[in-house]
């Protein structure tokens, strides 16, 4: 047994991981979720807004992290639509606009067809410059975005009237996969106007521990990894859920089942790995 474990081919471990993730997906198990305070604070920050308030929605991620972040993005957009907020979409990552278009197609056009482009939501698109974009938006948004993503001059868009900088927004809702992302929004947008700007964010698991020091003073709430997405989805569904909810709004919740089996596998592997190590030490091999 010891030799078998000591010389275990890593492809066996790969197969175990594949089974641990695939089987719960095939069985379509959806465990229930209870929101933690940091996610609840993000939800309540949006809930506290009134109809017509402005939210700056920054999609700063790419397909490599969409597995974790797409559910958050969908939940954020749905929540903003349910609250009848004015949504200003932007992206700091080059492929962010693709996710903006997906949100438009899958959430707004499908479930909120009364929303009018230019009056209820606008797509300002992607700009290069990373934190340079945030810096400019913090002072002068109209210089950074002379047109929207469809080429319409900003002065011709009704909902851009009276919008000069980030201070004119009630909340920044950011979905972030890394750099540039939530950290930069805190450093350049929130820091420039801490009393005027609120930020709620969703981030990957890798980033999450690094962002905790910003909560709650500089960030009103944080959705950390797929668990945060699942918790937020459960809150949105709890408040605004309808019969025959589209499966798209429960993507995060569905992904918690493979998380459970994957995590148990990881704990088991670490435990068995250490068992092998101590057995080797006892035999004088380590």
């Amino acid at each position, binding site marked *: 047994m010891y030799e078998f474990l000591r010389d275990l081919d890593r492809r066996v471990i790969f197969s175990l991981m594949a089974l641990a*993730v695939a089987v719960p997906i095939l069985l379509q198990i959806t465990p229930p979720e209870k929101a933690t305070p940091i996610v609840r604070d993000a939800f309540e920050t949006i809930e506290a807004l009134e109809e017509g308030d402005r939210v700056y929605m920054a999609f700063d991620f790419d397909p490599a992290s969409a597995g974790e972040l797409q559910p958050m993005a969908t939940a954020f957009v749905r929540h903003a639509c349910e609250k009848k907020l004015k949504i200003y979409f932007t992206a700091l990552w080059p492929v962010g606009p693709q996710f903006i278009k997906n949100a438009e197609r899958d959430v707004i056009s499908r479930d909120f067809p009364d929303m009018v482009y230019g009056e209820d939501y606008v797509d300002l698109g992607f700009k290069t410059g990373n934190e340079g974009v945030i810096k400019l938006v913090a002072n002068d948004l109209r210089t950074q975005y*002379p047109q929207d993503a469809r080429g319409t001059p900003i002065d011709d868009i009704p909902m851009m009237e009276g919008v000069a900088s980030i201070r004119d927004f009630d909340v920044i809702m950011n979905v972030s996969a890394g750099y540039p992302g939530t950290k930069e929004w805190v450093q350049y947008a929130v820091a420039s106007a801490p009393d005027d700007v609120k930020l709620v964010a969703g981030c990957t698991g890798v980033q999450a521990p690094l962002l905790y020091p910003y909560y709650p003073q500089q960030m009103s709430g944080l959705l950390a990894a797929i668990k945060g997405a699942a918790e937020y989805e459960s809150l949105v569904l709890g408040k605004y859920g309808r019969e025959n909810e589209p499966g798209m709004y429960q993507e995060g919740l569905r992904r918690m089942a493979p998380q459970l089996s994957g995590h148990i596998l990881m704990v088991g592997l670490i435990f068995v790995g250490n068992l092998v190590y101590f057995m080797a030490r006892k035999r004088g091999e380590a």
Partner: protein
Amino acid sequence: MTHATRRGNATFGVLLVLIGVAIAILNAVAFHPGAGTQWTKRTEHVHTLEDGSEVRWTEHEAVSVKEGREMAALEQDAAPLFSRTAGLWGAAILTLCIFSFLLGDNPLYKAAEAIVVGASAAYWMVIGFWETIVPNLFAGLFPDWTRANFMPKLSAEASVDFLLLIPLALSVLLLLRLAPKIGWISRWPTAFIIGVFCGLRFISSLEADFLSQIGPTIKPLIVMGENGFDLESSFSNIVLVLGTMACLVYFFFSVEHKGAVGKVARSGIWMLMITFGAAFGYTVMGRIALLAGRFEFLFDDWLWLIDPKDAHPAQAFLQTIAPMLT
């Protein structure tokens, strides 16, 4: 690893892809007829130009197979689209090619990797050009030309911003990095970029990551609640405040970590180990979510083994492909 082992591993990798595709084809024919088909709703656009000629195109909007069939039954213009179906199968095969690396490096993985490297670089170039260079540089320097060719909605009153000649010049200098003999001139725009970066970072890091972190760290170590001494909050604050200080003491490498300083630094290391353990836990969570996403793509969009979005009907294979062939 011997050459024979490498060849064996490569064979396993190629076999994974071939077996995967074979199973998918069998599934699409026998078990879930039409699996992997992509339907679209079509809208015809016809416009007559000033010279009398006609411009026409078809707009395709993705719909689920179920929606598409319902629309087709109501004689609305929805049908399977071969190019998107081929695209989906191509994406699934490329996914298997990447996964084949787990069994061993092989030509299919290398080919897929080469494709993503080339496609990504070009993708970013195209986006940089259309999203920033055209609207922010060309539109400012050549507004009439830009309006006539790329941005017809640009205001007719837009004037030339001659100051943009500076970033235009710096851009040309930056591209000269590719020229071997005069590549040194790219130091000018590089220095400009670094200067701006340093200026931005200097203030932001001090403001957001230093000064703003001090306030939340100054917390009472003895917290009195409504019912007297609040043990939970006090303990939490002690851990937070003293933990932060212990970690900062550990980072003081200019003082030798001996005696009292050494003991405090050691407790700082323990705090950092807890931090890294949490980081590991969250990293695992993130990676598994990404894998779950890919498996959902394969099982839902490609193989129709699951249907969380209620998009797939059960139907005969020939009924699906017949419209594509006509």
